[in-house]
């Protein structure tokens, strides 16, 4: 039996690594939170990390745009686009294959890519969480910017199916799930640079109180109107939260105007749904 050893989520904007010292009173809090999360992850000695993120038209174009896509490369190359971290990341193709088939059996016939290159939505979190990079990564792409997006409810179902699939992995595999994206920010829009701190804190508050179903009821129109198109990346948080089944522990939140994003870093209590302790979704 495999084990989900950790579920977490973090923002991923490139400025985190390109301009790390901006507004030190705020950014230092965030960097310490990433260090805390990385130490927690390292102590759990995961065999792999399922990194749930998106793409900003670097890897996927409109010629062929998946909703969900699992990366199955031996080594994933990074784009290093626009000054973001480049290089390569070790994949976990055997484990990815188990996940692909396990999710398929559970009604999620994901696309797969044996070459999936990674943009900053994967690479920035890996730069801040080196324990994840060294464990080896199974990247899971989620369409967060090309409507129609998968519904938040569908993403929660995927998170639960992912947890069930991990639980059935052979060899006692220890797997972490980390979502990346959000919180409020506007990409490529006139409102670029703005942050909706109230929205961000409401999301975190609801997740901390185990009220994920209320978040799932929000429409994309509402999220985009209040918190920008970048907040549609909340899907990755939903997948991690639903996989864990428990409450959110916010490690840090800061409205980081120099980075143009409301930055959240959180872990989710891993509670097996069949233990009767999970949040009812």
């Amino acid at each position: 039996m495999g084990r989900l050893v950790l579920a977490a989520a973090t923002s991923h904007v490139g400025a985190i690594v390109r301009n790390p010292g901006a507004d030190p009173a705020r950014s230092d809090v965030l960097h310490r939170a990433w260090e805390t999360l990385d130490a927690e992850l390292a102590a759990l000695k995961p065999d792999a990390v399922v990194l749930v993120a998106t793409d900003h038209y670097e890897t996927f174009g409109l010629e062929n745009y998946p909703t969900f896509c699992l990366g199955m490369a031996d080594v994933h190359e990074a784009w290093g686009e626009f000054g973001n971290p480049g290089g390569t990341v070790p994949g976990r193709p055997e484990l990815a294959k188990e996940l692909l088939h396990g999710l398929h059996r559970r009604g999620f016939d994901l696309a797969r890519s044996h070459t999936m290159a990674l943009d900053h939505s994967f690479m920035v979190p890996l730069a801040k969480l080196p324990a994840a990079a060294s464990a080896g990564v199974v990247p899971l792409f989620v369409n967060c910017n090309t409507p129609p997006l998968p519904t938040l409810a569908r993403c929660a179902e995927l998170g639960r199916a992912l947890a069930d699939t991990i639980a059935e992995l052979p060899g006692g595999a220890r797997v972490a799930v980390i979502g990346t994206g959000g919180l409020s920010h506007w990409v490529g829009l006139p409102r670029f640079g703005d942050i909706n701190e109230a929205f961000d804190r409401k999301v975190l508050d609801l997740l901390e109180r185990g009220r994920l179903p209320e978040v799932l009821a929000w429409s994309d129109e509402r999220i985009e109107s209040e918190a920008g198109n970048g907040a549609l990346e909340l899907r990755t948080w939903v997948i991690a939260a639903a996989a864990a089944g428990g409450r959110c522990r916010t490690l840090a939140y800061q409205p980081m105007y120099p980075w143009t994003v409301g930055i959240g870093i959180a872990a989710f209590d891993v509670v097996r749904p069949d233990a009767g302790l999970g949040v009812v979704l």
Partner: protein
Amino acid sequence: MSIVGLNRLARELEHTPGLRERYESEPGEVLGRFPLDPEERDAVRRRDAAWLLAAGMNPVALRNLMVVLGVAHQDMYRSREGD
């Protein structure tokens, strides 16, 4: 609106070796390789993010296009007069 053509243009200008430099010297020739309307080609040459957004281009792809054309993210919607 040639959504697919504009997205391809953005990706290829960013990723195809030498294409960005070719665009600098022969923008019309490069734009002619993509299935774009004349108005769209003009908007790209003007680096007119507001026009392209209003015409329906995805803002994430539009951000990439503007940045690769030398317009910083925060400057996309500032007046291009005198540019």
